[in-house]
Every structure is written in C-alpha cells, then in structure tokens.
C-alpha cells in the first residue's frame, strides 16, 4: 500500500550486532519452553519418580533392615526415561517440524545452534532433575515416618547419591539431545536412545544370567558382558546413584560413581561431536 507500512525498519546499511551466543541461547530457550511437550514430559517424570519411590519405599519398609536413604533412587529407574525422551524431542524436533529451515538461515554456521540446544537442555534438565529428586525424597518420607525413622540427607554418602541422581538425569537429557541431533528423525532417535539405555543392559544380562540354573555370580572376575554392560551410558550413569561403598555390578570393573559419570559424559560428548560434524559437513534438507 504505502511506505508507511515499513516504519520501524532501520535504513539499509546501519551497522548492527549480528548473531550472538547469548541471543542463540535465548532463542533456543524460548523455543523449548514455548512447546507443550517438554512441560508434559517434566510433569510425568516428576510424578512417576515420586509415586514409584513412594510405592517401593512402602513395600520395603516392612523389612527389618529398612534404611530410608537406600530407597531414594528407586523411582529413578523408570523416571530417567523422561529426560531422555525430552532430549530426543529437542534434538530431533527442528528437523521433524521443518523449523530448522528458518533456524539455520538465521544462524548459518549451525553449530552454535547445537551448542545452545545443549546449554538449554542441560538447564531445563537441571531444573527438572532437582524437582524430580525432591519428589523422590518426598516419596520416601511416609515410609520412614511409619517406622519412626528420620531421613538424614546430610548423612554419610547421601549427598553424593542425591547429586549423582541429578547428574544422571541431566546426562540422560543431553544423551537424548545428542542422539536426536545426530539421527534427526524422532522415531529412529527414540528407538536408538531407549535401546541403548534400557534394552541393551537387559540383553547383555541374558548372556550372563540364564533364566534358569542360577549360574550367576559364580566368580568375581571380569566378564565380557559385564564390562560391555557397564560401559553403556545408562548403566554407567546408574553408578552415580549408588552409595560410595556399594559393590557395583557383577563381572564389571569397579568404576565407582565418578568413573560411571565420566563414561556417561564421554558418550554425550562423542555423540554431540558427531552431530556437530554432521551438521557442519552435510546439507540440511
């Protein structure tokens, strides 16, 4: 209609600051939090963690040797699926919806987008993890109260377990992000992530522990399946949630909580690196 429409646009050629790291991170944060699925995933994760911990603590509170702190991480076995799925949806989401076309024309170097997604996923995952762990702690309280016990979170080893639980959840969110960004499609990425974290340990267990015959734990030596098993991201991450003095897993080298965390971190870094290379060197279509 007329030139009046274009008020608010600066004259061509005015020097302006370009794409900044802070801007990219802020943009990714807006994208993540403006969708409904991350919030749903978060709510379900927290609920599942709390309810399962509560059920399991109630069930084991009848044991004479019940120690409330030992039940804290039981809800995490299932709840860890939440951050993993969340990460996959963030990593693959842009490619699924076509949103990447506008994203990568705005940030043509591309890899800052991936870095920003990692920062944002870690931040959202951290918030989610803290609330989830709080739900786990709350889930143990009724069982502890029923036995007249108190839950001392500062007691030996417990702070480490709580930190480990938070780190496990954040790490799995980042692992999901890396798999999603690498594979770019939701279905293959979800399948890969879930098989890697949940299913391969079960399959490896079949090798060392036949269903019948009780041949398990006949020796304390290392086994191939035990070693491979503990190097999987989910199993390794799980080590962070075990009390420092616990024995670890049968047939596996004793990595300890720190070692387990490092293995999970290595998985995340390698997969994110591959995703960055793919982003840099291959077309996005």
């Amino acid at each position, binding site marked *: 209609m007329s030139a009046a429409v274009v008020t608010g646009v600066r004259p061509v050629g005015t020097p302006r600051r370009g794409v900044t790291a802070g801007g990219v991170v802020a943009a990714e944060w807006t994208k993540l939090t403006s969708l409904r699925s991350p919030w749903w995933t978060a709510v379900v994760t927290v609920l599942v963690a709390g309810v399962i911990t509560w059920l399991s603590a109630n069930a084991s509170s009848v044991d004479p040797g019940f120690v409330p702190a030992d039940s804290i991480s039981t809800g995490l076995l299932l709840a860890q699926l939440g951050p993993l799925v969340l990460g996959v949806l963030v990593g693959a989401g842009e490619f699924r919806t076509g949103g990447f076309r506008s994203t990568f024309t705005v940030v043509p170097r591309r890899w800052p987008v991936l870095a920003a997604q990692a920062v944002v996923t870690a931040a959202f995952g951290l918030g989610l993890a803290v609330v989830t762990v709080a739900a786990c702690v709350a889930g143990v309280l009724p069982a502890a109260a029923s036995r007249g016990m108190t839950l001392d979170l500062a007691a030996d080893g417990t702070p480490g377990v709580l930190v480990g639980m938070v780190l496990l959840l954040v790490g799995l969110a980042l692992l999901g992000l890396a798999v999603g960004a690498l594979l770019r499609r*939701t*279905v293959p990425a*979800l*399948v890969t992530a879930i098989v890697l974290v*949940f299913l391969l340990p079960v399959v490896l267990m079949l090798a060392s522990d036949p269903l019948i015959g009780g041949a398990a734990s006949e020796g304390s030596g290392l086994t191939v399946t035990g070693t491979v098993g503990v190097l999987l991201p989910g199993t390794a991450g799980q080590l962070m949630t075990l009390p420092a003095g616990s024995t670890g897993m049968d047939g596996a080298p004793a990595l300890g909580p720190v070692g387990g965390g490092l293995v999970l971190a290595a998985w995340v870094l390698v997969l994110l690196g591959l995703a960055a290379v793919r982003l840099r060197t291959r077309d996005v279509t």
Partner: protein
Amino acid sequence: MSAVTAAAPRAVRGAPARRGVTLARVLAAEWTKLTSLRSTAWLAFGTVAATAATAYGLGLFVRAEDGRSGTGVVTSGSVLAQVGFLVLGVLVGTAEHSTGTARTTFTAVPRRLPVLAGQALVTAAAALGTAGAALGASVLATSGVRSSVPLALDLHDPGTVRALAGFLLLHTGVALLGVGLGSLLRRPADALVTGMLLVVVLDPLLATNPGRVTDTLRALLPGAGGRLVQDDAALAALDAATHGPQLGTWGGGVVLAGWVVVALAAAAYRLRRHDL
C-alpha cells in the same frame, strides 16, 4: 502443459452405480501403501539382522553347564526384535495422521473402520513374514553353537515347536499392539514411548524388585507375552519363582492378545467418534 486440456470425453454426470469400497479393496490398498515405503523394507531387514546377530552374539556365551535349551538360544534375539515389530506397527498406525494422508484415505473410505482393519491385517501379514525370516536367520546364526555345545533343536518335541511358533505369535502380537497404539495416539513419539514402556522396558525394571505387587503387574502387562518364546522348563521356573499369578503355558500370550484387542478397540472408537 497444453496437452492437458480435457479428459477423454466422458459421459458421466453424477455417479452411476459402480461398486464401491469393499474390505478386500481396502486391504489391497493398505498392502500397496505398506510395501511402497522404503522404510518398511529397511525396518524388516534391520529387524531380521538385529535378531539374528543378537542370537549369534549371545550364543557365544553359552556353556554346556548353563542348562539352556536349543530354543532358548535360537529365540534369544526376541527381546530386541520386539522393538522392530513395535516400530513397524506404530509407523503403520500413525502414518495417516502424522503425514496428512488421513485426508486422502478417509475421504476415499469415509466409514474409516475398514482402513483400521486393513492396516491390522497387512501389518499382521508383514510381521508374520518378517518374524519367520528372523526365526530362520536365528536358527542359521546359532547352528554353530548348537552343534558345538551341543544343544538339540528337536522339531518332534511339542515344547520346541510351541516355543518357535510362540516366536511368530509374540512378534505379530507386538506389531498389532503397535498399530493399535499408533492409531489411538496418532503421534509416533507418543505411541512409540508408550509401546516400548509396556512391552520391553517395564518388565525388566519390575523384575529387579520381585514381590507380590510387582509380579502381578508383570503378569498383567503386555511384556508377559515374552513368555511365548520360553521353553517348557523356563516357563516352569518362572511360574515357580513368581509371587503373582502363574500364567502357565499360554497365559502370557492371552495377556498380550487382550492388550492388542483393547488397543485396537480404543483406536476404532476414536476413529469412529472423533474428527480427524
């Protein structure tokens, strides 16, 4: 574009009496749809390869004193294989809704339910064929270990035949559950996560904490279908160990079938009653 002026002279005005939609025709259409996607072939191939490779890999750890059976070794890839069949079903069930093909499909078949029936039938056929191939490949992949240990795979033994047939039934059932969940939930990620939870994730998690409640839950989840591939000795051991209901030989299969029926019925209800 100039040659496009007119269709050959047509005398039609309105619809003459031509036979319309039949279940057989919808079935043919759904078969064309399934086989015209490259992803189907890759998925089937990948599932067969992963199943046989797992069976081979796990076979490397089998020792004579384990007391395993030949069928146990052959079907040991089925935990991983279930994922492939679940994905197959979920992709068939969600494809209409995730790609917008629903607009085309359901204007051609406005009664809608024949489409779901067609999808279930072609998926069952494809799953049965793929499961047969996976079973054959697993038998071949484990032939070395079975002859060296040795472990018998005796097709005259009813228990062996039942477990091998159970392999086909389990994976066909899981694929059908995928169709039901996919058509009901309509979004691949939702259906896939739900399906994997129900079929392969929850069962081992619950197994880590045996008790009356967890064992009862395990018996009621579709993961109980995994019992279909166990040989008689393993089933007896499972029933002896459980604190929940004992499912016997076919109980696990019946539980899985129940889940399939409920998921497909819920999908049919949503398809019939709701907008697309």
